[in-house]
């Protein structure tokens, strides 16, 4: 155990040292220039044209502070409860531990190098951002240090921390696929590598000013619309989750013994906290308390509403009883699907996205999963992968220029090129996610091993990985 721990930390540290080394040697030249235009999830719809450096707007700042807090709340208690309720009692702390450690770990990695890899100007032919912003080098406490398209009326540091919360939750979503069986040390190593090697590039492509899929980047051939991370967050985490589920193999006893959720009340609490927190995720992606934020808020809420009704409704018709797990799954599916579209569509389109999400995710989690027989424990792929893909594509259909801004209409408004762009961006990201996840899993397996031992898995991750029990309600 100890040797693995040490191995694990050595590898991580070396990785970080290498990266930092590269960057620090570059630092003399690192006075952050006001780079070429780029656009992120934030302010895609409200990028001020002028190059004038804006002042801090207190209302926008207030909203983005709150949004950052809300997105953190999504990881925990939100996601931790949503996922935690679905596992067996003996693994509840394992799930929670993954969430809180990711909050610590990914935040730290983001400050050290992740932010730079994502939002610094491109290196490696556009594959990823550079190292000029390593250790937040040049990130200001006032607005204006960001590129023109990201020019917001909030401090650059706030933009940084808001984006950090996305870096925290995205690998957290994957945990749903390997829940109840991955070794803790493997989880730590996997998520670190995945974040830096997969999330950062994809986020750079889609959200950095010179990103090759950033719609606001005039030089981008396939400018995609991704308001709050349909591709960046959900699609790539979902597809990576599927690969994890397959490569780790099924849980012991899967298909033979029942593995019902041990505490659906937690799942419910988590789902509704996700619903609330998602307002920070989607409406916060406007980067300001403006009309785009309000549009995103309403579309988000309506997609969750119809997603809930749709999934529960399908169950009602198909098996005579709507279930609370269905309702919760439906609301999350709706939220996932509306994420890339949130600030670009009307409330009615939001409602349609929710219905579609409810239908396709329902079938992904039931029919498809049981047909192929992989063990995606908590349906990270079924909900985030499938819902994220549906959202990424449908954004290209439903985006409305009136709301999203000129040139951002979708197929419905006659701009079928947009759908092609969405397909290319999503497809490319998907390929990186699959290939990258495969390699990372192989590396992690070689270093520390992916799966907990049989005994550990039977005993439960709470005791075997953390030496604790969740509930001792008997004394």
């Amino acid at each position, binding site marked *: 155990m100890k040797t693995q721990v040490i191995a694990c930390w050595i590898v991580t540290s070396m990785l970080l040292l290498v990266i930092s080394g590269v960057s620090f040697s570059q630092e003399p030249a690192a006075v952050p220039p006001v780079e070429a235009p780029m656009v992120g999830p934030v302010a895609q719809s409200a990028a001020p044209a002028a190059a004038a450096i804006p002042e801090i707007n207190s209302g926008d700042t207030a909203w983005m502070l709150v949004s950052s807090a809300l997105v953190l709340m999504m990881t925990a208690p939100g996601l931790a409860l949503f996922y935690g309720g679905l596992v067996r009692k003996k693994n509840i702390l394992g799930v929670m531990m993954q969430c809180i450690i990711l909050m610590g770990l990914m935040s730290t990695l983001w400050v050290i190098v992740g932010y730079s890899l994502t939002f610094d100007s491109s290196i490696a032919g556009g594959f990823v951002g550079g190292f000029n912003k390593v250790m937040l080098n040049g990130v200001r406490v006032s607005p204006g240090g960001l590129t023109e398209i990201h020019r917001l009326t909030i401090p650059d540091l706030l933009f940084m921390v808001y984006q950090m919360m996305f870096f925290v939750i995205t690998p957290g979503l994957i945990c749903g696929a390997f829940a109840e069986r991955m070794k803790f040390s493997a989880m730590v190593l996997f998520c670190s590598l995945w974040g830096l090697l997969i999330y950062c590039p994809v986020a750079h492509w889609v959200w950095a000013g010179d990103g090759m899929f950033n719609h606001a980047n005039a030089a981008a051939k396939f400018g995609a619309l991704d308001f709050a991370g349909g591709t960046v967050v959900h699609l790539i985490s979902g597809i990576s989750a599927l690969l994890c589920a397959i490569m780790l193999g099924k849980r012991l006893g899967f298909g033979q013994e029942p593995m*019902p959720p041990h505490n659906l009340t937690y799942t419910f609490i988590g789902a509704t906290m996700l619903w609330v927190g998602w307002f920070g995720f989607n409406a916060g992606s406007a980067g300001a308390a403006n009309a785009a934020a309000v549009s995103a808020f309403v579309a988000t809420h309506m997609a969750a509403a119809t997603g809930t009704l749709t999934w529960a409704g399908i169950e009602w018709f198909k098996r005579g009883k709507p*279930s609370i797990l269905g309702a919760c799954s439906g609301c999350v599916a709706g939220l996932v699907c509306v994420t890339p579209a949130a600030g670009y569509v009307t409330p009615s389109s939001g409602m349609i996205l929710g219905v579609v999400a409810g239908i396709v995710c329902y079938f992904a*989690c*039931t*029919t498809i999963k*049981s047909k192929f027989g992989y063990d995606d424990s908590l349906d990270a792929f079924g909900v985030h992968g499938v819902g994220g893909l549906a959202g990424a594509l449908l954004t290209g259909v439903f985006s409305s220029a009136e709301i999203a801004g000129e040139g951002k209409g979708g197929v419905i408004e006659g701009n079928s090129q947009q759908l092609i762009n969405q397909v290319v961006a999503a497809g490319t990201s998907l390929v990186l996610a699959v290939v990258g996840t495969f390699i990372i899993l192989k590396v992690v397996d070689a270093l520390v091993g992916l799966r907990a031992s049989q005994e550990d898995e039977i005993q439960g991750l709470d005791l075997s990985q953390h030496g604790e029990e969740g509930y001792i309600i008997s004394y």
Partner: protein
Amino acid sequence: MKKIEAIIRHYKLEEVKNALTEIGIQGMTVSEVRGFGRQRGHKETYRGAEYTVDFLPKVKLEVIVDDGDLQKAIDTITSHARTGQIGDGKIFVSTLDEVIRIRTGEQGGGAV
């Protein structure tokens, strides 16, 4: 000394307890169990995966009685726990070698 173990429905516990108290039985112990017999469980579905939950929640009542009170106790339990529907439960009777009251060390009938 006889030990009566009765597996009954949850919502009959209060009634049975009161009835036993009325016939002078002064102590009992209950625990949560799950069981099945003729009455089989139900199906639960979680995201399309269907489980048959065979075990239904029941209450197990343990009452220690003097041999003389046995029949009365059995009758009382039987009549008050009955609904006539499948799943009403069972009563098992066995013989104890000894009963001791921890507080006093008393043994036998006086200890109950």
